[in-house]
């Protein structure tokens, strides 16, 4: 396995020029350098989306105030698969580090919530809270994408 620090010139994905999701794949293959790069990069690439932007609007009594489209059946459309993958990759890359790390371990790598808590030396409630936040952000980006695809 080559070092991830080779010349894939992607200007906006950080100094090493490789998207984080690719680094995750290298990490999965046991490449420690890729994992270190992943860790080093977190502080530079993250931003935090306000919670209101990823939740539906609620009325004062807590009742949902908008219609929510169920686009999950559309996700089986083979014509959208490659683009969906890019949308997911970009969304995960943009997650704030503290949500991203939990999301990658729990939902992509498939560690249990308890294992993720042990790896990060955090409590389970904190893991679940970050996981929820990450899933909400990803859901929102996919919702934007599929709702656009539907109306196109």
């Amino acid at each position, binding site marked *: 396995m080559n070092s991830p620090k080779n010349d894939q010139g992607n200007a906006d994905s950080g100094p090493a020029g490789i998207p984080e*999701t690719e680094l*995750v*794949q290298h*990490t*999965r*293959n*046991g490449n*420690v350098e890729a*994992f*270190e790069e992943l*860790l080093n990069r977190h502080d530079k690439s993250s931003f935090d989306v306000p919670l209101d932007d990823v*939740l*539906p609007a*609620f009325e004062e*009594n*807590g*009742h*949902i105030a*908008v*219609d*929510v*489209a*169920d*686009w*999950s059946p559309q*996700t089986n459309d083979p014509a959208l698969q490659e683009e*969906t*993958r890019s949308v*997911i*990759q970009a969304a*995960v890359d943009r997650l704030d580090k503290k949500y991203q*790390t939990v*999301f990658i*371990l729990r*939902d*992509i*790598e*498939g*560690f249990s*919530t308890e*294992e993720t808590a*042990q*790896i*990060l*030396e*955090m409590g389970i409630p904190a893991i*679940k*809270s970050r*996981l*929820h936040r990450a*899933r*909400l952000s*990803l*859901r929102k980006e*996919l*919702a934007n994408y599929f709702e656009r695809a539907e109306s196109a």
Partner: protein
Amino acid sequence: MFTCQEVIQALTDYLEGDMAAEEKAVFEQHMTDCGPCRHFLNTYETSSKLARHALETESIPPEVQTRVRNFLKAKLGLNQ
């Protein structure tokens, strides 16, 4: 009684199976009665599954998994 807002807050608890039986029954009743919440749950759950499907390549051999796990613990434990 769950409001929609509480239901959405509790999605991870529900999917993790961390609800007492009675709470779970109320949650599921809400999902039956409330289309928007049901659609939110479906798309929330689908998002995780899609991400895993899209971003995982092949399964890690167990020995690498152990190494990654130890490495993660050593690296990340210090930062938390």
